[in-house]
């Protein structure tokens, strides 16, 4: 049975017709064509579908759309704005942390959340924050370099964080 729900995604409000079992991932990809959030496993074990719910990284494949009402949802498409790429995105590019790019949206969002919570993470904190994001291309080496680079940039940046 379909119902209409309202979701706030990337600071825009959307009215959507969903079934109870419709996941947030389906809403993003199939209803809204926001295909930046990826499905690589569908069962919560790869991190490719990571989105930020009230700034916290969560897995869209295991969230029912109807349970995301009244929450602030941020997808990869909602990061960069008029000011261009964020420091995290820039760092990923400059350090060569992007190869096939399929894990990249999930990684970037998780890293963004990590650096928001923990501007100067230790190696252990980085690993614990990213242990749920798989990458098969990079070996994670350049991803960690990008995180350090982004952390450095953010700490010297203006109070707005850019």
């Amino acid at each position, binding site marked *: *049975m379909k119902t209409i729900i309202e979701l706030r995604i990337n600071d825009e409000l959307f009215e959507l017709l969903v*079934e*109870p*079992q419709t*996941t947030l991932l389906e809403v993003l990809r199939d209803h809204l064509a926001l295909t930046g959030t990826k499905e690589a496993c*569908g*069962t*919560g*074990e790869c*991190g490719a579908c*990571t989105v930020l*719910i009230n700034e*916290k*990284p*969560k*897995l869209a494949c*295991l*969230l*029912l759309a*109807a*349970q995301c009402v009244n929450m602030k949802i941020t997808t990869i498409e909602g990061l960069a704005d008029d000011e261009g790429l964020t420091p995290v995105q820039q760092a990923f590019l400059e350090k060569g942390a992007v190869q096939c790019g399929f894990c990249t949206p999930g990684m970037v969002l*998780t890293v963004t959340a*990590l650096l928001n919570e923990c501007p100067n993470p230790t190696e252990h904190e980085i*690993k*614990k*924050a*990213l*242990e*749920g*994001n*798989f990458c098969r291309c990079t070996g994670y080496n350049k991803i960690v370099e990008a995180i350090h680079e982004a952390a450095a940039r953010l700490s010297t940046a203006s109070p707005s964080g850019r």
Partner: protein
Amino acid sequence: MLLPRFQLLQPKSIEQATELLGKHEAAARIMAGGTDVLPRMKYGLESPSYVIGLSNLPVFEPVDSDGFLLLDSLMSLTDVARSEIIRQNAFGLAEAAYAVGSYQIRNMGTLGGNLCLETRCMYYNQQHSYQFVEPCFKRNGDRCYFIPKGKQCWAVFVADTAPVLFSLDASVEVLSNGSPKRIPIDEFYTGNPLHPCTLSRQDLLVAVRIPINSGLRGTAFSKFTIRGGLEFAAINLAVVLDVQEDGSTCSNARITVGAVAATPIRLKKTESLLIGQKLSDDLFNDAGRTAADEIRPIPHHGFSASYLKACLRSLTRDALTSACSRIPRH
């Protein structure tokens, strides 16, 4: 992968939740964070008509209630790991919560959900459209694929937070058909892999209650995996060590091992080896050996029983050393 169709109910209070449970009985299924329920549904392991989503229920902060730490079962695992009051009084629980899954899963998954984790087996936790088509015991069938000549199910209970609660002598607060019940943690688990915890479909796990200890205590949690992340435990262990005022004679020891049976198991023989003794590296080495001999681990997920024993020995010694180092010293 598709989720089967269901009706979603989203109560705003515990009372509403219990009312709905009472109304729909076995046709309804509680869902907290969804990180166990939803994959199970995608694998075709359950298909409830109603899902009672608890994400709109208020979640209370951990409180000290008459010498007991009271934790809302709906606390996210991230919050459990970070909570100051939990870290002060039950550090092993914070460690265990931090060891679960991944950052995303810890943000979504709850303490209660972890305690109610269904038992697992490689053959079981996958779809059965062209592999293992005939249902096994846990799927209400008549066979076991893991031990083909076996007459029982060998699924194991792997949740990380449960062994800690055993070692802390905790209990859980349950609403059973609406009426409150307090169940000691070692009675909460049945040992039956087909139905690992005593909750029926109408019950709701609302809180965890941990006695606050005022003596000299150190706790530790250890989890063994191959990768170090995004993996259920091959074996996990929770240790609580209390010492007398001299700071080195053991007055109480609790060692609970998980993931090697359908329920966490207290290693009572190993515990008794420690009680009354002066804590030392040699003692911890002995304890490791005793622990490895004390139980027969159920092999699972590719790990053999003998290997799990070897891990248990190592893990026990390490966890005891770690717990010992956390005992406050004057």
